[in-house]
């Protein structure tokens, strides 16, 4: 009886024992992932798109390609002036009402630059005074030729008693932004010269003390980080020669194929925002495609010719830059092959001569607030082209971490589309590891078919279809190892013929998934 009871009890306990392994089963789930409509407005800002007179789209571009500003022309170095002031007599009694004056006249060392006036955009001046007199003093610095918001700049210091071996120190850092500095000196016919007055007096109320001609008060004036906002004078004669590289990062995504453009109109302008005489020369414009290692140099009429740049007009409160336009089109240049090279970087060589004939304006060169010298591009790129296997590649980071409850086994992603662009596309996905090494190619069953194109009206009748990407067990098993996904899209126009894209062209799509997953409870 007891044994029978024990068996029943053990059986009951076993029946309701804890689970030894998870409950698992596979199921198939379909869900939408992403949907939307893409047009050229999603690739190019709307302000850069326009419908041209032939009723198809053009990309317009108006912006500075290259620029240099004032700090290339004028560099005001950090400078410290140190001066001592002392009485001329062997011995003087300093009474409480004692006052002594001195003048300050110091020239800035600026090589060939001869500045008459500077309005500081930023910078600091540090004034430090060392008192060796055996009594209290006060010290006033007046700079009538430095205006701070229209008022002459001055500073007042009070110092305690010091000694030759242990002078008393007072210091002040002043922000010079907005300071209007007249550098013509006291006489008004100098340049690079800063002038002012120093008044030293006793700051004692009762006591007197004695000083000699060896008891000096030393003051240091340090100009730091000065950047001019406006300057007038002679800026010197310079020749700049440089070759610079301009990276076009968005072109990195083009990984292959070719494109044939129809026509192009560019206006390359050199804009001079300084009131000075200059000459410029464009020596090189070369496009480099690092994928194909091909380079195409742009040739146009003004290449390697000296261009005289007029000074800008206007004044401190407003100026108009002078412009020298250079027209580049199909007829006078090789701009089409230059662009069809699909360069991902441009090499620009130039020469710039400032004041090539020296100081011919009697020191009337000016730089204005915001003055720059720019290479300005104004272009219209009609979207009329033929593409043959033009490949775009973009890489995205992914970070997939498996979940113990839900394990993907295999599946498909289906792209259902309505393509309004007269371009066919082959799409390929690649899974890459953290080092960019290829792990798997996710195959597609076919490509995106092009819209039907009318060569006369340039309109397109959209095409519908689906593209299915298959993720088999092997690919899914490696998803955790994949750290990047590369999207390769290869475009071609039908028979590599020329097409023109209208503003109504859209690519409508829905990406949905059908995944077989294993649930583990």
């Amino acid at each position, binding site marked *: 009886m007891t044994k029978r009871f024990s068996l029943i009890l053990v059986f009951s306990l076993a029946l309701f024992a804890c689970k030894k392994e998870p*409950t698992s*089963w596979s199921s198939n789930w379909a*869900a*939408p992932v992403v949907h939307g409509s893409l047009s050229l407005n*999603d690739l190019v800002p709307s302000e850069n798109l326009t419908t041209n007179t032939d009723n198809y789209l053009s990309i317009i571009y108006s912006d500075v390609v290259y620029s240099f500003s004032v700090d290339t022309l004028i560099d005001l170095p950090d400078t410290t002036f140190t001066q001592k002031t002392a009485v001329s007599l062997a011995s003087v009694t300093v009474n409480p009402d004692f006052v002594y004056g001195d003048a300050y006249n110091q020239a800035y060392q600026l090589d060939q630059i001869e500045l008459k006036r500077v309005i500081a955009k930023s910078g600091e001046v540090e004034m430090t005074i060392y008192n060796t007199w055996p009594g209290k003093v006060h010290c006033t610095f007046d700079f009538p030729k430095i205006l701070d918001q229209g008022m002459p700049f001055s500073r007042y210091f009070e110092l305690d008693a010091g000694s030759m071996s242990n002078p008393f120190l007072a210091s002040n850092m002043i922000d010079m932004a907005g300071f209007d500095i007249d550098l013509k000196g006291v006489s008004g016919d100098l340049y690079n010269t800063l002038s002012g007055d120093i008044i030293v007096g006793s700051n004692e109320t009762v006591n007197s003390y004695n000083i000699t001609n060896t008891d000096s008060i030393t003051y240091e004036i340090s100009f730091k980080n000065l950047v001019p906002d406006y300057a007038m004078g002679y800026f010197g004669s310079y020749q700049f020669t440089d070759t610079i590289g301009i990276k076009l990062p968005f072109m990195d995504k083009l990984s292959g194929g070719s494109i044939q453009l129809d026509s192009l109109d560019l206006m390359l302008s050199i804009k001079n925002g300084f009131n000075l005489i200059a000459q410029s020369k464009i020596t090189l414009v070369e496009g480099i495609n690092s994928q194909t290692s091909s380079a195409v140099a742009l040739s146009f009429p003004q290449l390697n010719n000296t261009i005289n740049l007029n000074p800008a007009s206007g004044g401190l409160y407003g100026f108009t830059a002078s412009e020298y336009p250079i027209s580049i089109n199909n007829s006078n240049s090789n701009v089409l092959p230059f662009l069809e090279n699909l360069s991902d970087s441009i090499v620009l060589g130039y020469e710039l001569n400032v004041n090539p004939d020296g100081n011919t304006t009697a020191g009337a060169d000016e730089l204005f607030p915001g003055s720059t010298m720019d290479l300005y591009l104004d272009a219209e790129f009609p979207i009329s082209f033929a593409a043959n296997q033009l490949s775009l590649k973009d890489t995205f980071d992914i970070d997939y971490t498996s979940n113990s409850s839900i394990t993907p086994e295999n599946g498909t992603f289906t792209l259902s589309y309505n393509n309004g662009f007269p371009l066919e596309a082959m799409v390929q996905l690649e899974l890459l590891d953290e080092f960019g090494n290829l792990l798997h190619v996710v195959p597609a069953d076919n490509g995106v078919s092009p819209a039907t194109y009318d060569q006369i009206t340039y309109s397109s009748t959209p095409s519908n279809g689906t593209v299915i990407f298959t993720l088999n067990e092997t690919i899914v098993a490696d998803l955790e190892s994949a750290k990047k996904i590369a999207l390769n899209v290869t475009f071609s126009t039908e028979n590599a013929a020329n097409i023109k894209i209208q503003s109504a062209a859209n690519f409508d799509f829905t990406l949905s998934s059908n995944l077989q997953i294993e649930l583990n409870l």
Partner: protein
Amino acid sequence: MMSLTAFAQEPTYVFEDTINDKNLVKFSSYNTYSSNRFNNEFMDKFLFGGAIDQELKDNNAKRLGRMNTIGGEFEQRVDSYSPGINLFKKEHLGLKLSFSDNHYISSNIPTDLFNLAMYGNAGYQGDSLDLTFAHAQYQHYQKFSVGFFDERNLSSIQISYVAGSKAAEFGLSSSHFYTSPDADSVSLDLSGSGVMTDRFSPYWAFQGGGFAIDIDYNFIFEGKVKNRQIINFKINNLGAVFWNRLTNNYVIQSNTAFNGFDIQDFLNDDTTDTQIDLLDTLGITESTRRYVDFLPVELVVQKLPDNAIDQKWQAIYGFKTIMVPDYFPYLYAGAYYRPIDEFSVSSRLSYGGHAGLRMGLNFNYWVKDKLYFGAGTFDLLGLVSKKIGFGRGFNFAMYYKL
């Protein structure tokens, strides 16, 4: 001899003669779970783990119908009978004290919900899956009972303090899940509510209190002794539990469609719409407050075998219902055979409850009018077969006269 008092949930019940003067303590254990659609092979995967393959899914899916229920009752009980303590100055009314620990599970899984969970939605694109009347309920409570029993016909009435340990209940009314034919949109229309106590541990969590009344009455139809018929009438768990203020209450009311993320959000680097708040999306409103929950009221009417008559073979039959939405009326009929005074066996066929057709077998053994053992199952097939068994059950009882 003292009779066995019926189990609160289900009788392994033999009516014995009424004359007695001894105290009696009885222990009983009633445990059963069953389903009217899902066989043991399938349910065991959830109980003990394992992989559910396509064949197992398909075999169970073929059986599904309008109601697909899984339920279970588990009661461990001790009763004490004291005939010497008379209530209301009536010599025939003795004191009955009881303690029981009860678990109750009841659920209905609509066919479309099973298919969605087991197969996914990919095979149902273009179809609207009906999730209406999905329901699941669990209660765990203890009863501390006091009452009296009639020594003449062994009827009893008890009132209980119910200590609520833990509970959860969720149900859906009109609810649907739809996947478009091209899987470019999925929509979920949910309407329902749910309740869950704050904690599910420890075992005796004591998160509520309530009361219950149990009535157990035996009608004795007298003829000649050997033709005496005993009809038992029982109402159990007439009461409620008042769960505490930390009980979580949920209301689900949502009509949500998902069409995928918009590519423009990614192009604009706008992650506002790419982050989903699940509770908000599903329209689930959560609040914390007290909740009143009725116990699973049980009604039983049955003919009992009578040990006081000479008949070796006796018919047994009965009806039971539990007032929950997933419980079908339970009917049984069978035979009771007592070849010798100390031993008897009964067998029954039953249909209903949370299950379909089942077969039961029970054994009783008496030792010198002092000791009793009973054991059996109402689901013999379930104990021996995974494929044709749709649940399992085991009952045990013993009493000792002091």
